[in-house]
């Protein structure tokens, strides 16, 4: 098996791109990725993986592999396929590309793309609810947001926190997102605003809920031989892992434990011969403070019931012990559905390259991006290392 590297990357702004369609967004991201890798030509791409969660339900397009390969003008003789794992679709597409390159493919292109804002909130909620169990959850009108809300209420109850215990998470996300030109929300919020925000699904309020938006992000994944010919710092994907759990929240022994999040992070770190304490910067699936909290605790950064306390002390900011959402996270950068996993890996790669600007984590050499589908039914983790 050969080592696997990030050879190029690019992303569109996250937003309500009313004037642009899915092909247009994917094309921009792929062109930016190629432009970032001057030594690479499109004809070198040997496989194409697309991650998208909602392309059928909210855009009416199947076969994204063939569809976008044709849009990009890729060789018709290479495999091109779309992968769906709800919010983890893009990360799962990257996982597939990593497998192929490890096994000898010189270069793969991965695109995460989502085009959702042609629809109103009710259709978006219904599409997101498809990540849950259709008979046992979605049929009862339960939304993904409401499921996180129920976990939040239970967490507050079990550990005795006040309702605003999770405020540090969106406050950190917005502080960082304000400095990211590609973020959906480029403004700061404070604890006072958080307390006054209207409820979406109690106890989750508007300022603790991400917004699903349009965007596309792309990565060029290269084997060692090709990567050695390229300029710039070498970012290696040192460990990748997928783990799963039942989508039905009520079938889990303890719903507050995200088993797949724990397993995928630990397997990925094991493959990189690293431990939790070796990671300098994190990207998590953090549409709500409770989501970031349960992931941090599952991974083992903090004991169960303690992450909000550390967050209140600044542990999740760029200068803290476990920096998260340095580009704004799901809350401020925007939830880009299946494309989110690619945006996450791009942010970790920027951090490790030392090009993350105002939210740069000092001396970051190891990062972990974890992408969840639904309430952690699918968990995909990638460990990135900057080689010196």
């Amino acid at each position: 098996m050969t080592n696997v590297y990030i050879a190029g990357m690019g992303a569109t702004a996250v937003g309500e791109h009313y004037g642009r369609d899915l092909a247009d967004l994917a094309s921009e991201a792929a062109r930016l990725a190629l432009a970032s890798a001057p030594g690479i030509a499109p004809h070198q791409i040997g496989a194409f993986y697309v991650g998208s969660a909602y392309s059928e339900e909210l855009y009416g397009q199947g076969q994204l592999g063939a569809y976008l390969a044709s849009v990009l003008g890729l060789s018709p003789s290479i495999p091109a396929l779309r992968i769906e794992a709800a919010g983890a679709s893009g990360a799962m597409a990257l996982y597939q590309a990593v497998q192929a390159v490890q096994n000898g493919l010189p270069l793969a292109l991965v695109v995460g793309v989502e085009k959702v804002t042609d629809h109103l909130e009710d259709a978006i909620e219904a599409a997101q609810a498809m990540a849950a169990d259709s008979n046992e959850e979605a049929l009862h009108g339960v939304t993904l947001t409401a499921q996180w809300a129920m976990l939040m209420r239970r967490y507050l109850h079990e550990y005795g926190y006040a309702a605003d215990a999770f405020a540090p998470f969106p406050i950190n996300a917005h502080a960082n997102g304000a400095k990211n030109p590609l973020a959906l929300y480029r403004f700061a919020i404070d604890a006072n605003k958080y307390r006054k925000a209207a409820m979406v699904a109690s106890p989750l309020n508007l300022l603790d809920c991400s917004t699903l938006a349009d965007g596309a992000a792309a990565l060029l994944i290269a084997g060692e031989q090709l990567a050695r010919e390229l300029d710039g710092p070498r970012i290696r994907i040192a460990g990748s892992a997928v783990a799963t759990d039942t989508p039905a929240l009520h079938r889990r022994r303890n719903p507050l434990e995200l088993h797949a999040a724990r397993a995928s992070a630990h397997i990925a770190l094991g493959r990189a011969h690293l431990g939790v304490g070796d990671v300098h910067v994190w990207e998590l699936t953090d549409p709500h403070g409770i989501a970031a909290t349960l992931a941090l605790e599952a991974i083992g950064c903090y004991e169960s019931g303690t992450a909000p306390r550390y967050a209140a002390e600044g542990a999740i900011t760029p200068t803290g012990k476990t920096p998260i959402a340095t580009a704004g996270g799901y809350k401020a950068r925007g939830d880009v559905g299946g494309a989110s996993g690619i945006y996450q890996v791009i942010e970790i790669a920027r951090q490790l390259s030392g090009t993350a600007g105002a939210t740069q984590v000092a001396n970051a050499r190891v990062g972990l991006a974890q992408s969840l589908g639904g309430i952690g039914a699918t968990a995909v983790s990638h460990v990135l290392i900057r080689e010196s």
Partner: protein
Amino acid sequence: MNIARHWRERTTRYRLEGQRHRHTGEVRFPAQPPTLDEDPNDWEPYQLSGRGEIYSFSVIRQAPSGYESLGLYPVALVRLEEGPLVTAQLTDCDEADLAIGMPVEMVTRRLMDTGEDGVLVYGYKFRPCVQ
């Protein structure tokens, strides 16, 4: 066409029928196919009592398509007295009265707006226990 799909769930939705393990007594709800390492004969149909308590709840203000007519509506994870957790809507209650640990009981109600098939979809919801 979802008519058959709703029809085949009738024992689950109307009677709260799950399954019980013949030897360990473990109760599962809803029933599910045996996993690859289970003996299918070990699981028998089992009707749950419909009593339980609220494990957690939320009140939804942004409804998905098909549920808009409910306006605001409460959903819950209910811990049934036989052990399983179940996801369902709450009904016949005020948000201010809801609390974790509150005893609830099953009732049969309409679950969603009628879709293109015009089928009225009924199933279990839970309400605070009538004293």
